[in-house]
């Protein structure tokens, strides 16, 4: 056994146990050392795989045998390097942000959650993937419950129920898919690889691809695709200030990773991604809770990534992976900034905030840098990554036009995503900093948060700028390095810069022109979660329960009207069945049945 046999996710899972039992001083050490160790372990495997073959195919670094199944818990897929790196980085900086609150169980749960995500990223087989997937659900639900509020406990239960459903769909899909391949004599039925048979036939539905469909739907639940987008806005704002930072990073991006490995090029993802990009903006425009604004904008950003995955060319995949990397950093930064405001003021609604620029300069500047990065402003990380997805779309449209394939969807996707880019600046780039730090004076004069929270924010703000100015190191770990390297030469050009400035600054103008329409009110916007939060409970209470009551009443009435003796006294031989029995009697009956079964099976049948 070498270091290559240790899945990097396991390093974080062990750290999670240590975190739960160590005293405070040890927890600091674990929170900061564990991600470094996991990162080192991850890169040992990645370097091994790349040394063997630099092209973007899955390399199995370690193989285990378990119950007759071949498990590959250390596998380097094309996008593994970029996701593993950002997950470890996020765990470390998120831990730094969270450390000063004395919440050992939340940090422990965060390590479990990140460990699960890392297990998924290195999963070479579907069983390992499923295990990592479920570990994530447990960890993230625990993070939510660590907020210890009524709202968080209810939201956590809804979150858990939905993700359990997604996990069951994934497992059912895996079982069906692997079972079919096994029956067909496939050499490696459990392999987690590109399910190419979905590409051409995503509109067809039949028994042959039902397993893949179930897996796809299970992954889409975690990605927040419609109609499952509501859980993001429902759950994330209910966690603690540090809990939300962790939650914003892993679930949706792990789903993007799995879609990238398994379902790249499935056209359905383009439609879903475009819907999410617009949905996120519309709902964020109407929202008042500052962290729910940011939660909706996660849906919007994951929409961009899904479009990239759906286009599925090398450049588009590179763009989606790079965007996931940049997104985790600036989204966590925005959530940290909002979390610092929550920490300092105890308030979460825009209507109760404003004017905080006076006393929270570090939080404000970090929030603004994050807001510029999410808007893909030039010189920030969003610019050097999101533009790659859009270039991937135009490039693919050109290729399809050249061979005469219809590509209206690519053209539509480009125009919609350009509009969505403008909308991001509107709903997150300006709206979040404006309503929290400027607008009216709320009279609040809170100080910046403790040093560890400030340091975490400054690190991520610095990374947003560095990746915007020097994207080279990020491009070097993308799935398809050659495409990324050639793109690096063209990302900054005068024409594109001017287009971007025009698009963004005039969407900013639109914000201030439309400000009267954007005034915040203490309102929420109904979403599909209304079905399980309001509609089904109401139907149960108002329709089904009265019907059951009526039936119960009718049954009692009928029984009373029947001729015969009143119940209670055992008079007839049959009535003995209604009395209490000792436990030994049914046990004896069951044992007798088993004996008869064995006798029939082993003695009677073979002789017959």
């Amino acid at each position: 056994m070498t270091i290559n046999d240790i899945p990097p996710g396991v390093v974080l899972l062990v750290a999670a146990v240590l975190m739960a039992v160590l005293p405070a001083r040890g927890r600091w050490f674990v929170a900061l050392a564990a991600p470094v160790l996991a990162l080192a372990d991850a890169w040992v495997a990645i370097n091994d795989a790349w040394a063997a073959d630099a092209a973007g195919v899955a390399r199995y670094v370690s193989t285990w045998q378990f119950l007759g199944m071949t498990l590959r818990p250390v596998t380097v897929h094309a996008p593994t390097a970029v996701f593993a790196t950002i997950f470890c980085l996020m765990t470390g900086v998120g831990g730094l942000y969270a450390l000063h609150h004395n919440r050992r169980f939340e940090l422990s749960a965060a390590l479990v959650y990140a460990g699960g995500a890392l297990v998924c990223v290195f999963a070479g087989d579907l069983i390992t993937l499923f295990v990592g997937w479920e570990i994530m659900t447990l960890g993230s639900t625990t993070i939510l419950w660590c907020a210890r509020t009524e709202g968080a406990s209810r939201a956590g239960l809804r979150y858990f129920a939905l993700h359990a459903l997604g996990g069951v769909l994934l497992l059912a899909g895996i079982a069906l898919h692997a079972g079919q391949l096994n029956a067909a004599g496939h050499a490696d039925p459990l392999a987690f690889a590109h399910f190419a048979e979905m590409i051409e036939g995503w509109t067809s539905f039949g028994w042959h691809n039902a397993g893949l469909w179930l897996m796809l739907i299970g992954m889409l639940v975690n990605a927040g695709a419609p109609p499952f987008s509501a859980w993001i806005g429902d759950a994330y704002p209910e966690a603690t200030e540090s809990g939300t930072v962790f939650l914003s990073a892993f679930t949706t991006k792990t789903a993007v990773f799995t879609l990238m490995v398994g379902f790249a090029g499935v056209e359905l993802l383009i439609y879903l991604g475009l819907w999410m990009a617009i949905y996120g903006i519309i709902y964020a425009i109407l929202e008042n809770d500052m962290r729910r604004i940011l939660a909706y904008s996660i849906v919007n950003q994951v929409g961009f990534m899904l479009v990239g995955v759906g286009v599925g060319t090398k450049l588009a995949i590179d763009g989606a992976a790079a965007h996931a990397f940049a997104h985790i950093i600036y989204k966590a930064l925005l959530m940290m900034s909002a979390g610092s405001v929550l920490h300092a003021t105890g308030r979460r609604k825009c209507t109760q905030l404003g004017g905080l620029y006076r006393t929270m300069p570090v939080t404000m500047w970090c929030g603004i840098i994050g807001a510029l990065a999410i808007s893909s402003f030039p010189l920030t990380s969003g610019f050097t990554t999101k533009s790659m997805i859009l270039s991937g779309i135009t490039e693919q449209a050109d290729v399809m036009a050249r061979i005469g394939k219809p590509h209206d969807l690519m053209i539509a996707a480009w125009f919609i995503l350009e509009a969505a880019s403008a909308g991001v600046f509107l709903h997150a780039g300006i709206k979040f900093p404006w309503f929290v730090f400027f607008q009216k004076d709320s009279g609040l004069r809170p100080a910046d948060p403790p040093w560890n929270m400030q340091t975490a924010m400054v690190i991520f703000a610095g990374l947003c700028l560095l990746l915007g100015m020097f994207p080279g190191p990020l491009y070097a770990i993308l799935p398809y390095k050659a495409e990324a390297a050639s793109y690096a030469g063209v990302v900054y050009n005068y024409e594109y810069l001017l287009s971007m400035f025009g698009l963004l600054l005039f969407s900013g103008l639109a914000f201030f022109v439309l400000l009267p329409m954007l005034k915040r009110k203490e309102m929420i916007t109904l979403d599909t979660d209304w079905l399980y939060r309001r509609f089904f409970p109401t139907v149960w209470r108002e329709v089904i329960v009265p019907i059951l009551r009526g039936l119960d009443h009718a049954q009692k009435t009928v029984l009373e009207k029947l001729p015969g003796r009143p119940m209670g006294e055992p008079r007839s031989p049959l009535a003995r069945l209604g009395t209490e029995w000792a436990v030994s009697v049914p046990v004896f009956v069951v044992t007798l049945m088993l004996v008869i079964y064995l006798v029939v099976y082993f003695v009677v049948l073979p002789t017959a």
Partner: protein
Amino acid sequence: MKLSDPRTIKWIWAGGLLVLAVILGLDFTVHHHAHFPRDGISIDTLPEFFPFYGFLSCFLMVVVAKALATALQRKDTYYDDQ
């Protein structure tokens, strides 16, 4: 010069509008390449396309959001009694 001073706000507005004017002016100096040249789509090569498109799409999204709000918005205590 304090940010809460109305005169400062006026200066910021003036500076912002100046930046917008400069962007509009510079946009005439550059030739925008078509993104879908094989399809004969040339709207994205027009000068001022991106500023116009950014403003228009934001305007439309806000209008759509407000229209949806009339049907879908509730007091934020809507779910509290469950």
